């Protein structure tokens, strides 16, 4: 295979997945499915980008990421309920107030979980840097503890996630039914992607982090305290997971303590497909998983998870290091 062809491979695969269902699905359904697939992809991106960046930079396989996601969903739930009780912005009034309360809940969740992430990194993960085996054990232990803490604080049952009034229902664009919330999720996800991308590309911190993904020792040699950046990246990854959790909960309208364990598998697959430590890889991988999952879920409902695994197997066999291995 020549290199120039290889460079376009990810794009080709995405477009192939994107267009293939045209043969089987009517255009209107196709658009509806594509939008929900893109929304799912953007939400998966939020979870897996943090996971992937933490692995790339800290080389820690953070299995507690799913628990941070669940914490984000629960804190978002509580924040939304409290703010709504206090101000009533989540009710049937203007769209802008709905968006404000939604974003407020997400910001609260992101900030609190970032603090939780800092505590986890400092207390639990820092003593075992360098040993993959112990990191896996420690993060599994942290996952158990955090998930059980949720059961202790909020109780073990499912809760109904409140959704801002104007986010429900759908718009009718040229006879195509477009649900409102997936569009909002896509927009928020895209904005966050651009923000992350800009931070990584244009700021000094981003340059250091990208250099750290490639070669952490060299960054230390250049006189940067890499452990401080480790904490920062872990906190940022946790915040992204939490925002993803809050948005996912609004998407599926319910939360339960084990939801993180289910999503972490998707995050793993996306991170492997995209290439560990790569932002662009995360977004491409997440969109691929989200789209293929939704198309197959419509055509053959029971094979939906199977297609994700198939995607993983195919990508791993043709490109063992993921689609974007360079750490971009």
């Amino acid at each position, binding site marked *: 295979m020549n290199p120039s062809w290889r460079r376009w491979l990810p794009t080709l695969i995405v477009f192939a997945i994107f267009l293939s269902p045209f043969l089987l699905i009517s255009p209107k359904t196709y658009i509806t499915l594509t939008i929900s697939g893109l929304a799912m992809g953007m939400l998966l991106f939020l979870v897996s980008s943090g996971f992937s960046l933490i692995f790339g930079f800290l080389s820690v396989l953070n*299995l507690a990421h799913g628990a941070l996601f669940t914490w984000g969903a629960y804190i978002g739930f509580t924040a939304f309920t409290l703010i709504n009780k206090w101000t009533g912005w989540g009710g049937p009034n203007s769209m802008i107030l709905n968006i404000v309360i939604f974003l407020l809940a997400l910001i609260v969740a992101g900030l609190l979980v970032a603090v939780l992430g800092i505590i986890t990194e400092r207390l639990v993960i820092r003593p075992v840097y360098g040993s993959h085996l112990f990191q896996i054990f420690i993060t599994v*232990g*942290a996952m158990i503890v955090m998930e*059980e803490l949720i059961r202790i604080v909020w109780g073990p049952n499912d809760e109904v996630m409140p959704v801002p009034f104007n986010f429900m229902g759908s718009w009718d664009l040229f006879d195509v039914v477009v649900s409102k919330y997936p569009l909002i999720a896509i927009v928020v996800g895209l904005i966050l992607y651009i923000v992350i991308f800009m931070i990584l590309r244009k700021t000094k911190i981003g340059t250091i982090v990208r250099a750290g993904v490639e070669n952490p020792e060299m960054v230390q040699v250049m006189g940067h305290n890499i452990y401080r950046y480790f904490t920062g990246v872990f906190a940022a990854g946790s915040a992204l997971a939490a925002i993803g959790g809050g948005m996912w909960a609004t998407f599926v309208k319910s939360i339960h303590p084990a939801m993180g364990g289910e999503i972490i598998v998707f995050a793993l*697959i996306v991170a492997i497909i995209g290439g560990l430590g790569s932002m662009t890889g995360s977004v491409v991988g997440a969109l691929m998983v989200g789209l293929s999952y939704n198309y197959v879920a419509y055509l053959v409902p029971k094979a939906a998870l199977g297609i994700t*695994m198939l995607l*993983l197997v195919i990508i*791993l066999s043709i490109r063992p290091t993921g689609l974007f291995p360079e750490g971009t």
Partner: protein
Amino acid sequence: MNPVQLFRLEEKEARFRSPSFFLRILLLAFFVFTPFLFRSFEVLDVVLKIIIFAALVASYDVILGYTGIVSLGHVLYFGIGCYFVGIFMGKLGWTSYGHLALSFLIAIVISGILSVLIGLFSLRIRAIFFAMVTLAFMEFTFILSSQWRSVTGGDDGISFKLPGILAIDFSFGKILGVEFSGRIISYYLILLLSLFLFLLMLRFVHSPVGRVLQSIRDNEQRSIALGYRTYLFQVIGSSFASCVAAVTGGCFAIWVRYVSPDSSLSVSIMLDVLLMVIVGGMGTLYGGIFGAAFLMVTRAFLPKLQVLIASLLPGIPFAIRLSERWLFYFGLLFIIIVYFFPKGIVGTAQEILARRKRE
């Protein structure tokens, strides 16, 4: 004679005189006489689960402690073993000894093939990929087993009867005042199988292949330099352990006579296995027995402890909720053990003994 041969000769001579040898015999005797010592079914159940999980944890230890790669989906093969026995006995209704043996055989073959495939395309790149890919596959199989209702019975699972002398209503008569029902016979069958598996694993880790695996664990670069294809050896190690896990799964199904996604394939069982291997000690094989015993016994006594706490602190819902979440304490224990006793019970004991011997 070279030093290695001398060392082995010395080891062989001391084999029947060492205190740990008597300890092992004592342990085996305890398992053999359990049905005579304790008449209650609950105790027998706990002891048998210790036996099965000791074998399962030991097979996990072959991957983790001896090969040095982390699998997070080892329970997948346990579940395959469970489900093949369940499907053959329950769904298809083929209750005969031949079909029981056949179901074990198919489970072993399928586990072997699957683990070789997973190993081939995930160990090739980085050992850490193996952890992620196995976890993803286990989750996939879990969802498959809970949704493919026509074959696996969905979330309800399959309950089934066993052939001939293993059936519950079979009775052999009384020996030493204990009625030899199908339960007791299956207890001994499982004990025998687990013992066989355990000896097989001991043989495996001390075989030339096992020594290569340990060398890969200790220094992969050096093993590559010595000319070993480390990646193939890792695949061999993990697929051997997977086949053993499939047999333990079949044993579990024989004892419980019921399979369901939650009881045989879920992540919580994987967490149990991880906890057992950490408590017992990695790279020891025997650690599994202690780890399993610790977890099973604590879990059997926990409900009583909860009742006690609830009676001591009436009317405080938060305290009761705290006492209910025993997994929380296991998680804390897990972290503490990894920090302070990374070698587990058996590993720490071995270290102390070795230090004493040197002095």
